[in-house]
């Protein structure tokens, strides 16, 4: 029914065509999808001894958590890089996840541990997200919506902001009495096996809603990639779009940090790889590629370490190592140009 379609999407007309003909990007996406699928299968089945009826749901829950983190980190990083129009900044490098920990500590510090422990986890999460959005909005406004600044300066300020947030939360934690501190520490790093299934489900609903929204907004991101002036010239309501994206990023960062704690360079790693593999900047390809890469890294990496090398959970350390090197290379290459 073309008439109705016209009402909803004024730009959609008969004979529509996409910008780019799929070729290499589609191939890359297919390959990544396959590898991700293999990783997931291996994760679920390798090394199972004994009762499948117990192992599968147990691992399934863990897998659901990992996939959630992969989605959240990959999407938030790519979007953040689009909004800030560069390839080095990521939410965690700008101290967003340290900010989340600070907000969490702050709530506990100012409300008291008793209230904190008794609080409805959904209410608490909602409160944390709202505070995050407020803070990150301020930080962003100050860093990006004003005059133009040297990118390296912004990155450095972001990193030091992260250190500052961490130090302040550390300080607050020390001010709490040691018991309260223990409560807090437990709530920071909810391991996948102990996470509240309801919270996990809710997070999934939120992330899926975000994915749907992103799909609808998709075309705007490509225009944002052209830079602020060009985007405004092409009729993008820059302010509104940027604020929407920041909101989405805040929610995603809160979800991923709540699940696994801060992993500074994970996002950078998958976003850089996605850009490198896809070869053009269409979000239609980059976003799914980044998500798939994140899944491969997390699920595949976890399987490899756990089942093959029997290394247990040192994955985040390895990711930090690789991500740090990618960052240095990016910075040096970018600066040399």
């Amino acid at each position, binding site marked *: 029914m073309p008439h109705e379609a016209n009402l909803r*999407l*004024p*730009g*959609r*007309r*008969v*004979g*529509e*065509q*996409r*910008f*780019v003909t799929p070729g290499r990007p589609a191939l890359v996406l297919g390959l990544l999808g396959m590898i991700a699928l293999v990783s997931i299968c291996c994760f679920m089945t390798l090394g199972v001894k004994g009762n499948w009826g117990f192992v599968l749901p147990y691992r399934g829950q863990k897998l659901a958590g990992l996939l959630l983190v992969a989605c959240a980190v990959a999407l938030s990083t790519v979007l953040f*890089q689009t909004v800030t*129009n*560069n*390839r080095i900044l990521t939410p965690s490098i700008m101290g967003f996840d340290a900010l989340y920990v600070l907000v969490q500590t702050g709530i506990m510090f100012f409300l008291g541990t008793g209230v904190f422990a008794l609080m409805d986890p959904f209410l608490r999460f909602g409160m944390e997200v709202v505070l995050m959005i407020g803070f990150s909005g301020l930080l962003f406004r100050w860093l990006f919506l004003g*005059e133009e600044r040297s990118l390296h300066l912004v990155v450095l300020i972001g990193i030091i902001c992260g250190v500052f947030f961490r130090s302040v939360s550390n300080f607050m934690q020390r001010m709490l009495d040691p018991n309260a501190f223990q409560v807090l520490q437990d709530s920071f790093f909810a391991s996948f096996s102990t996470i509240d299934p309801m919270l996990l489900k809710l997070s999934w609903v939120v992330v899926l809603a975000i994915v749907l929204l992103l799909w609808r907004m*998709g*075309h705007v991101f*490509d*225009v944002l*990639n*052209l*830079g*602020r*002036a*060009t985007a*405004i*010239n*092409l*009729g*993008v*309501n*820059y302010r509104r779009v940027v604020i929407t994206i920041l909101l989405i990023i805040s929610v995603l960062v809160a979800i991923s940090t709540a699940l696994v704690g801060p992993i500074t360079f994970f996002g950078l790693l998958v976003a850089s790889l996605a*850009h490198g593999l896809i*070869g*053009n*900047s269409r979000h239609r390809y980059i976003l799914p590629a980044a998500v798939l890469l994140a899944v491969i890294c997390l699920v595949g990496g976890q399987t490899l370490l756990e089942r093959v090398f029997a290394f247990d959970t040192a994955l985040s350390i390895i990711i930090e190592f690789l991500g740090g090197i990618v960052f240095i290379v990016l910075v040096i290459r970018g600066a040399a140009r």
Partner: protein
Amino acid sequence: MINATGLMKSFGKTPVINDVSVSLAAGGITSIVGPNGAGKSTLLALISRLMRADAGTVTVDGLDVWTTPASVLARRLSILRQDNHMTARLSVRDLVAFGRYPHSQGRLTLEDKAHVERALDYMALNDLQHRFLDELSGGQRQRAFVAMVLCQDTDYLLLDEPLNNLDMKHAASMMKLLRRVSVELGKTIVLVLHDINFAGYYSDQIVAMRDGRVLRQGPPAEVITSEVLREVYDMEIQVREIDGKPLALFYE
């Protein structure tokens, strides 16, 4: 018709645009000239809603640029800045196709494709259309960006120093192209230019600025004169007339 009234803009405490009121008629090429720091680029940014004025209003065909929805204005007026840094890796054709975004929101119709072809043709980019922007020379990149705003098919085209980084040959051909666009397609073109001789040779109107104010506005013959230029640039500049066009000799 672009109307600006009572525009003010300061960066920190320094005023950059100081009570500017100017109206630019539809049709033809208008060039804004003046020394560094005169506020030329800022004026263009205010007109094109890239920057918000501290005071004053700008209307384009009666539409207030700050309150009109961005997407509506984007079909009426386009702006190209001199520094187009971006991280996206795009082919020339992709970039030009983005010019259709205000009309089609990212999904090209047949009509849109025709516009893209025409713009590529106009800027002689057919052979380069599948190359990536980062593989091009400065002049070629500049042409690609101009093709994009051309493809946007707006009545008004605002270009901030389009001759920046172009050598003589490319600068001259860019100006010829812009003149063709204004004559053949009936577009209104507003430029910020550094070279007063290019401005004098190709423009229908010249706006001369200094210290955030408009000093003079008029056809080239009235603005490119020793008296006006002395006031604008603080320099003794002789003006000769060659083939009916004023030529400023500022090399002495």
